[in-house]
């Protein structure tokens, strides 16, 4: 198999042909992957049917559009509008329903993400709550800090990552602080918890902050303060939650575990191959290093326990030219071998679907094939099952952005 090239026009096997080669892989998850990699285009009719009172609206690069969808099995599709040359799926509104269209054919019905009630409210400090704590179908999302040392200080940000750019835009638009205040976040979550049955998990993330007495202490101190404030809202010492942060040292992890009610810990290594990691994530490579990142993940298992520690990879980015794997087979083998090594030591790996975005250095590249992603998702879930690892804190419902952990619904 030959992987990505910088040419824009696609010459790919059709969806039906690819999925026919994987009869054991759920069609709905394959569709999710394909929509994520190719992107979306909302028709005028669909946009007219969007109800801002009921649906979540999101802004990306100055374009407002519905913030993602649910398939009929409860699977989330987090996807972004993409230009025509990426052959995006259309979302239309026909016979009173939103539908996904590929090549002029309706392929599935979809629901738009419902808007929580707290989205219309403001914090006492005057911030729109929806910009402080956003909502997925069953999760509260806190993007705590738009600052990332790797991107903003060293100019060594991860080459696929549009988030520092995007969140800086959002913060400018809504006059949000670079780093959210814990009292604002706590106030939003308190409001969200009044919506019974609406949320099952709290997810916190932000850019890396390396400064401190020990490297990353400043980032850790901030998260501890934030988590303690959130923890005051719960009657139990621990609450279902996921911190996606930098790879803390063992001592830092112990502080995090002992001083907060955090339920799970994730630190994204992004690429499971040392040479590609060094190229794609230069800041992470410079300050932490690939092998140390892995070591810290394994130590986190001793602190948080098996089934509570994960790492994320940007699936497909390992094939980015010019230094990525040339063949998809080689990329897959390298990635799964490393995921297996981590799983053996209690760390679970999940992947997102790399869809090059404006604002990232890789914005002009193409994703690998659908076949590649099906094999990657199947492979990661098979590893998890083989090692008896759960991914409850990052599954289809708690997150919804990992095709491999969608498959864990059957585990």
């Amino acid at each position, binding site marked *: 198999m030959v992987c990505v090239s910088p040419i824009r026009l696609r010459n790919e096997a059709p969806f039906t042909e690819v999925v026919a080669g994987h009869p054991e892989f759920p069609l709905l998850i394959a569709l999710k992957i394909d929509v994520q990699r190719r992107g979306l285009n909302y028709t005028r009719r669909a946009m007219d049917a969007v109800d801002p009172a009921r649906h979540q609206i999101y802004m990306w690069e100055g374009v407002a559009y519905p913030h993602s969808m649910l398939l009929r099995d409860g699977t989330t599709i987090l996807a972004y509008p993409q230009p025509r040359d990426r052959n995006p799926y259309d979302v239309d509104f026909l016979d009173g329903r939103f539908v996904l269209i590929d090549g002029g054919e309706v392929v599935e019905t979809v629901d738009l993400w419902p808007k929580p009630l707290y989205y219309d409210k403001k914090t006492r400090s005057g911030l729109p709550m929806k910009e402080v704590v956003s909502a997925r179908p069953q999760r509260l999302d806190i993007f705590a800090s738009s600052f990332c040392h790797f991107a903003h200080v060293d100019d060594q940000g991860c080459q696929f990552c549009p988030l520092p750019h995007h969140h800086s835009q959002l913060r400018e638009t809504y006059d949000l602080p670079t780093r959210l205040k814990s009292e604002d976040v706590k106030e939003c979550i308190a409001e969200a918890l009044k919506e*019974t049955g609406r949320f099952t998990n709290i997810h916190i993330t932000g850019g890396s902050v390396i400064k401190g007495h020990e490297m990353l202490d400043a980032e850790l101190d901030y998260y501890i303060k934030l988590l303690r404030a959130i923890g005051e809202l719960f009657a139990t010492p621990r609450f279902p939650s996921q911190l996606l942060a930098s790879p803390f040292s063992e001592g830092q992890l112990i502080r995090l575990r002992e001083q907060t009610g955090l339920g799970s810990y994730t630190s994204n290594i992004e690429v499971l191959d040392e040479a590609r990691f060094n190229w794609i994530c230069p800041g992470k490579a410079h300050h932490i290093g690939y092998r140390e990142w892995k070591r810290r993940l394994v130590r986190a298992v001793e602190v948080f326990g098996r089934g509570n520690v994960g790492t994320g990879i940007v699936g497909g980015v390992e094939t980015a030219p010019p230094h990525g794997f040339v063949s998809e087979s080689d990329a897959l083998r390298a990635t799964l071998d490393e995921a297996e090594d981590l799983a053996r030591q209690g760390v679970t790996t999940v992947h997102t679907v790399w869809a090059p975005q404006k604002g990232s250095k890789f914005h002009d590249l193409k994703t690998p094939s659908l076949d590649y992603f099906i094999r990657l998702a199947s492979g990661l879930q098979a590893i998890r099952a083989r090692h008896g690892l759960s991914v409850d804190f990052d599954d289809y419902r708690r997150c919804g952005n990992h095709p491999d952990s969608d498959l864990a619904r059957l585990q």
Partner: protein
Amino acid sequence: MTIRLDPDVADLLADTDTIKILATVGADGAPHAVVKQSIHLGEDGNIHYLERLESSVTNKNMVRSIWFNRTVAITLAHGDGRSVQIKGRPVKAHITGELFLRHYRAARAGDPEADLAAVWVIEPQTVTNQNARARREAEAALHPHFIHLDRLARA
């Protein structure tokens, strides 16, 4: 083929004395049949049931069914002898949204320990009357050879 449930079946679904059993199939082909009293007729004409546990065997089998287009079976049995079997396909799992939240609140109002994982929607495809007399009469009509001779002998 999707069918519309007739009023007799709707009555049976609505009767709180009806025992309702949902049978699903696991990855290994093993059947899994459990009582699910939350099975009811939804406003859309389909059968709905409330899954309380995310990790239950039934929930996993339902996911497998919606992913791979498999059939599930529902048995309704009443003490007065009425009994039907409905075969259908799971077509939707509500894990959020208005319908889900309405059932979540109702479940919590009835049981403070209750949680809700999904409201499953099952599209009915066939209904078979499982009443003993009805089944016997159907067999006699369709398979006259399937009978012991002594039952036909002169007294």
